[in-house]
């Protein structure tokens, strides 16, 4: 009897240990390169180039970061780290907010208004899912050139903000809003704008937060489009600048600064995820349809 009572518990303990072993292993595999980037950013170029790279932080960390922020990056890439971070933040924010604004507005129109060719509009938006930026890159580039938007923030942001995915997500969510809620608002005298502002928007916050996170990271990590549409270093994003920094011969690359820039390129998306995650949870707990 004793055996019968204890062995399942022991088995559960063992299973738990095994599960934890695999989870910890997984975390190490995923996190190690990121950790290594951080370690590398605290050593001098000489240490980095002379294998093996130490596994513990070096003493050059402060120097590297101070240098990166005070002119070292300017010397290599012709643009300050502050400017790069600013550019990228602006673009990522522009893309995320622009996408939310446009996709919410179109989903609102498609779900709550009856107008001719409503379904045609829906399918048109849907079809664009099959046409990501990369596919329509040449015509888009031509349009940007004709509009004189090369090397501008507008040129960097506008082609990326129309989003079928976000429109579809909002459409699905809006369709779960009961008709009676809309009718109650109409009886209460709320017009389309008030209904959106007072009822739909507060109920959508959870979705908005989720989409913001996804799209901010999408915008932050954009590579191909910024590469094409910017010529001047002043308009570079941090990802592009990173690429430019390592396009020299290996020995000439200031690896310590590259690593510093990498760490700084990773931080903001992490920050957004961590901060917005609290929002999600709050939204999930507090709103209900």
């Amino acid at each position: 009897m004793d055996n019968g009572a204890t062995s399942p518990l022991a088995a559960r303990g063992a299973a738990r240990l095994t599960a934890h072993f695999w989870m910890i292993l997984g975390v190490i595999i995923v996190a190690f390169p990121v950790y290594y980037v951080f370690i590398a950013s605290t050593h001098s170029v000489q240490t980095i180039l002379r294998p093996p790279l130490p596994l513990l932080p070096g003493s050059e960390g402060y120097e590297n970061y101070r240098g990166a922020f005070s002119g070292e990056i300017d010397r290599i890439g012709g643009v300050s780290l502050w400017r790069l971070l600013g550019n990228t933040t602006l673009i990522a924010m522009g893309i995320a907010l622009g996408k939310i604004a446009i996709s919410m507005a179109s989903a609102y129109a498609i779900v709550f208004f009856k107008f001719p060719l409503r379904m045609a509009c829906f399918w048109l938006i849907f079809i664009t899912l099959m046409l990501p930026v990369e596919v329509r890159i040449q015509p888009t580039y031509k349009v940007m050139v004709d509009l004189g938007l090369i090397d501008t923030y507008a040129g960097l942001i506008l082609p990326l903000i129309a989003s079928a995915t976000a429109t579809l997500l909002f459409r699905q969510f809006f369709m779960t809003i009961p008709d009676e809620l809309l009718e109650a608002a109409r009886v209460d005298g709320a017009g389309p704008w008030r209904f959106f502002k007072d009822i739909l928007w507060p109920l959508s916050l959870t979705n908005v937060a989720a989409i913001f996170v996804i799209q901010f990271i999408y915008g932050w990590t954009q590579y191909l489009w910024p590469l094409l549409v910017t010529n001047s270093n002043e308009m570079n994003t941090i990802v592009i600048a990173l690429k430019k920094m390592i396009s020299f011969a290996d020995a000439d690359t200031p690896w310590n600064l590259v690593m510093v820039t990498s760490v700084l390129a990773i931080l903001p998306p992490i920050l957004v995820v961590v901060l917005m995650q609290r929002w999600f949870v709050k939204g999930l707990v507090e709103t209900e349809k």
Partner: protein
Amino acid sequence: MANIFLNDLRKNYAGQEVIHGITMTIADGEFVVIVGPSGCGKSTLLRMVAGLEGISAGTIEINDKVVNDLEPRQRDIAMVFQNYALYPHMSVRENMAYGLKIAKMPKAEIDQRVAKAAAMLELEPYLDRKPRALSGGQRQRVAMGRALVREPSAFLLDEPLSNLDAKLRVQMRLQIKDLHQTTGQTMLYVTHDQVEAMTLADRLIVMNKGVAEQIATPHEVYMTPASEFVAGFIGSPAMNIFTVQVEAGVAVLPGGHRLPLAGLPADREVRLGLRPEDMEIVGDDTPGIPVVLRSVEWLGADAFGYGMIEGSDVAITLRLPGSTAAARGQRLRVAPPEGRLHLFASDTGKRL
């Protein structure tokens, strides 16, 4: 205060007419219940009055003003929805105040009206809660409160009690009745529940397939149903209705039994309606309907006997006193008291 006048109101959906011309006047302060089976068009009719559904033909007048093309908010009505449709992210107070806030009413007056409605509906302890933290009955009261604070000309209620459990439904029914008596407001109430219909209404509209079969007081509807549909729909258990052949003042029942009745028309085929409670047990030597019982349900105060007219396959329900000793398989002879029969044309279903 408001009177409502519906004039030959019609509604088409994709060329299909679903409301076939309803005309009626609802007096100021009247409580009118629209009752009918599901799909009869009763909710559509209410939503047309509310302005949530377009009108295909005919007119609606509220306070002698045609409102066909007015938005719901311009019609001076308030509506209570079946699922309450409370705004989930607003507190009870905000839910009730929302319509007034949109109407740009001064804050002090909003507060005062919300306080008054909350007191009337015993919602004061819950004013700062979100709807999700309320029970079904409380949500229902918030929905009522949201309508009350607007002090509208007319209240429109769309099956407001159907999501509540039986006990709460009775309680809320009484509360709505009280509310109507205190406020004296015109109310238009949709339900499929005939108990609600009978107890609440000053007048009933019994609807079937988009037609108002009868518009009358509950008493009239019960005592003199205008059609076979109304007779079968109102009353529980349902009225027994079967076809009889009239021959020289005698009704020939299914199974060939002959029953002389007062008030029969000239020789023809008619539908005879007899309420379960209008069947008295008579002796074997008196003319009557022989019934073979198949089962008896004893409910305490009374009992329902379900049987067949002897020699036929026509089912018949009897209401028997609670003291009855009748049992399955027993043969009873029953006859309606004089004047308690309903006759309908066998083709149109109209009362004769």
